[in-house]
């Protein structure tokens, strides 16, 4: 059996170095690529088709969750492990919905990271006990409850979520269009659709939505 090929995506250089050192200490595991944005991670996964992609949730331009959605399409055999700084029920719901089967909170990574990678290498899920609890409560119908106001709003498409992230990072429609390789007119149409779907009227409200839904970090 060949080496387990892993990609690490985190915008923090020190975290990438540390994760690399932690994982490379395991015999038979090889870090084949590193990325510091979600878009770079997706592009490298498409090129290298690693066995496992470890994605930080908060990365510029394209966050970990959106990168995971893209990777699921372009390389369905690549198992994805999401790392997040903080635990969040909403985030776990989004992760599970994306079809990702591995989730580790960074503060538990010393304990959980190697176990999670081992599980995913065998195409088995690794979820923290909290994530399992959220999954089970989702199965029993508690998902999308009334205490989650965003659950009632019309769903955004993947491209719309990318636009939300870029606008919340302070980019203009023109800059967002340039990052995504689309026309300004298309970016502005997406922007108008996002505002309509979410029922909001300003960029500051959009930023609040993005922070609340962990599309960007506060």
């Amino acid at each position: 059996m060949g080496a387990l090929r892993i990609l690490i995506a985190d915008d923090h250089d020190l975290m990438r170095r540390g994760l690399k050192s932690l994982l490379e200490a395991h015999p038979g595991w090889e870090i084949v690529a590193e990325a510091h944005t979600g878009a770079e991670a997706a592009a490298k996964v498409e090129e290298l088709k690693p066995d496992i992609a470890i994605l930080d949730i908060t990365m510029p331009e394209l966050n970990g969750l959106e990168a995971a959605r893209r990777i699921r399409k372009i390389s369905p055999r690549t198992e994805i492990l999401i790392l997040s700084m903080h635990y969040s029920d909403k985030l776990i719901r989004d992760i599970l919905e994306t079809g990702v089967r591995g989730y580790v909170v960074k503060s538990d990574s010393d304990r959980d990271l190697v176990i999670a990678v081992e599980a995913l290498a065998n195409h088995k899920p690794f979820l923290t006990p909290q994530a399992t609890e959220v999954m089970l409560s989702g199965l029993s119908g508690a998902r999308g409850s009334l205490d989650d106001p965003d659950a009632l709003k019309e769903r955004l498409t993947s491209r719309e979520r990318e636009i939300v992230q870029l606008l919340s990072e302070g980019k203009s429609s023109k800059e967002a269009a340039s990052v995504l390789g689309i026309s300004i007119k298309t970016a502005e149409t997406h922007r108008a659709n996002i505002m309509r779907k979410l029922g909001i009227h300003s960029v500051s409200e959009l930023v609040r939505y993005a922070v609340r839904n962990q599309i960007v970090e506060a």
Partner: protein
Amino acid sequence: MNLISTEALKSELEESAADRGRPARILIADDHEALRRGLKAAMTGAGLQVCGEAANGKEAVEKTIELEPDLVILDLSMPVMGGFDAAREILQSAPQVKIVVFTMHESRQVRDETARIGVHGLAVKSEPLSNLLGTIQTVLGE
């Protein structure tokens, strides 16, 4: 933005090591093992010597007293004892040791508190590594 390259900082750190007759000894205190590993590799790569690691503030205080490092890199949010409390104790029991707070989020509150306590330097995790190395170099040269 810090425009000084990591290579230039490395050479300055090597010069101050030559002046001191030995590399500066650094204690790393952060509750994330992956980040400690990353920091250790970066410090060693810059010609500094990592003499110890701590996973919480209490351990940071104990290891500072035991190992007498030249400088402690101190995370703020750690279990058992946070970075601010650890900084206060270190400044009291080992006042010769320099402290650089290394935090995820920079805010006015964090800047004010580090200044009030008398911490020697502050660097933010999301900024390039050269900022941390530059801060360490400045603090060690004081």
